[in-house]
């Protein structure tokens, strides 16, 4: 299996590390594999005999990849079998990931991605393109990080109809809300704490306004529930207006507040919700969780780490293994 890693931020590097560290184990699943190209937004390296990932990681650490090849050149011209597309998410137009994925699928090359943008913008088109060209597009890492969602529904729960999903899909918001619940502190103070811990970005809009959770919800609705939803279909409220007093009165009645992403036949919605303190979704910290309601299996509940370099790599590797196993 010849692999190209397009995008070499924290997720791309995490995948490279795992491919290196776990070579012996992964070989039994993937067969002999080599990474023939690694690119980021500025440059990239290429070797058809397989790159030394340790050296590539070292180059990146020391300042950047040499400009031997660009991402576009890789997806258009290089010979390889699977593209790991892990460039940053852009939910406006899906770029640059959208073009990368389209180019690969057109050539019949399988793609594994953690990039929500292309799937939010063009889910159905990409799936059609893949089918037409006999390629496959895997995207476990786009929703819930290491928490199994897509393959859980599509493989383990195959044959079930997914009636609805309700879950916590953004660890940053969950961290902030669960800290507010514990300490009864104002939103601004807990946000500042989250920033210092590296849990929240300097500009936290994408997380706290529910955009990230909304994007994941669109992917889940399309992939698991056969919808053709767009981001604009998501009714969306963030957590910035939640007060410590809200937690106080809620707790007195046995409730807490979490940002819940919900999809069913009637609506897609990301909003703060009152949930009983002993409900399985009343989780703490940066965890993610999803409650899947099915017609045959009833309710299935998953919980796990929704972000992080190695956690996301876990989802990507599982997609790779899945591609390899089922392709034979």
């Amino acid at each position, binding site marked *: 299996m010849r692999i190209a890693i397009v995008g070499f931020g924290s997720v791309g590097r995490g995948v490279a590390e795992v491919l290196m560290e776990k070579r012996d184990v992964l070989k039994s699943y993937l067969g002999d594999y080599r990474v023939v190209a690694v690119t980021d937004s500025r440059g990239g390296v290429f070797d058809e005999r397989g790159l030394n990932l340790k050296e590539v990681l070292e180059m990146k650490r020391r300042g950047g990849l040499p400009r031997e090849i660009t991402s576009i050149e890789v997806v258009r011209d290089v010979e390889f079998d699977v593209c790991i597309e892990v460039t940053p998410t852009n939910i406006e137009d899906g770029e640059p990931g959208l073009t990368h994925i389209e180019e690969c699928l057109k050539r019949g090359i399988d793609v594994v991605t953690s990039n929500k943008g292309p799937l939010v913008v063009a889910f159905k088109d990409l799936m059609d393109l893949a089918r037409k060209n006999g390629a496959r597009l895997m995207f476990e890492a786009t929703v819930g990080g290491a928490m199994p969602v897509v393959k859980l529904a599509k493989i383990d729960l195959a044959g079930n109809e997914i009636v609805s999903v*309700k879950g916590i899909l953004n660890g940053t918001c969950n961290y902030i809300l669960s800290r507010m619940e514990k300490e009864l502190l104002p939103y601004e103070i807990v946000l500042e704490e989250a920033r210092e811990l590296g849990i929240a970005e300097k500009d936290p809009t994408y997380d706290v306004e529910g955009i990230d959770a909304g994007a994941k919800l669109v992917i889940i609705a399309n992939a698991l529930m056969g919808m053709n939803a767009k981001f604009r279909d998501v009714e969306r*409220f963030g957590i910035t*207006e*939640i*007060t410590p*007093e*809200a937690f*106080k*009165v*809620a707790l*007195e*009645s046995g*409730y807490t*507040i979490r940002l*819940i992403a919900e999809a069913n036949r009637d609506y897609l919605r990301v*909003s*703060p*919700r*009152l*949930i*009983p303190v002993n*409900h399985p*979704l009343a989780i703490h910290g940066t965890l993610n969780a999803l409650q899947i309601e099915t017609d045959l299996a009833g309710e299935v509940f998953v919980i796990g780490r929704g972000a992080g370099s190695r956690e996301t790599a876990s989802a990507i590797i599982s997609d790779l293994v899945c591609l390899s196993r089922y392709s034979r």
Partner: protein
Amino acid sequence: MLTMVVELEDKPGQLIRVLEPISRLGGNVISVTHRRDETTPLGRIPVRIAVQIDDSKVDRLIEEIESRGIVIRSYNRIKHTVTTTLLLIGHIIHTDLRDTIDRIDETGFAEVVDMRIIMPELKKPSTAIIKLSALNEEKLRESVRILKEVCMGKGIRVIEPL
């Protein structure tokens, strides 16, 4: 659910005369409370009995008990109601709290049954936890919809239950 207060003579074997028809009609006695301190001038003791029984059998039960010469002082069926709890954040009081509540109560099928407000500081948004009760799930959803609409017009955020 049916609750009734019957007046029983203060001698052995009276309570069974009430319980027997309840049992025969498939009712389930939830509680029996003797109110000895409220003994009537004729020396009868009011006994409050709560029974879970099929709605369609209530009339027959009342008839049977009365036909045994037992005085039923009062009885009422508690309507099957559903409730939900919501949280409101915003300028709840200065946007005419009474009107907000009235808009639910005037529907006739739902009402605000409980509310608790916390006002942190002057001019800062307050928070309220509010309990709505309605005749059935459908009416409850409708009352939540009305509340959301009223609150949206007043700039109040509604946090719904899961």
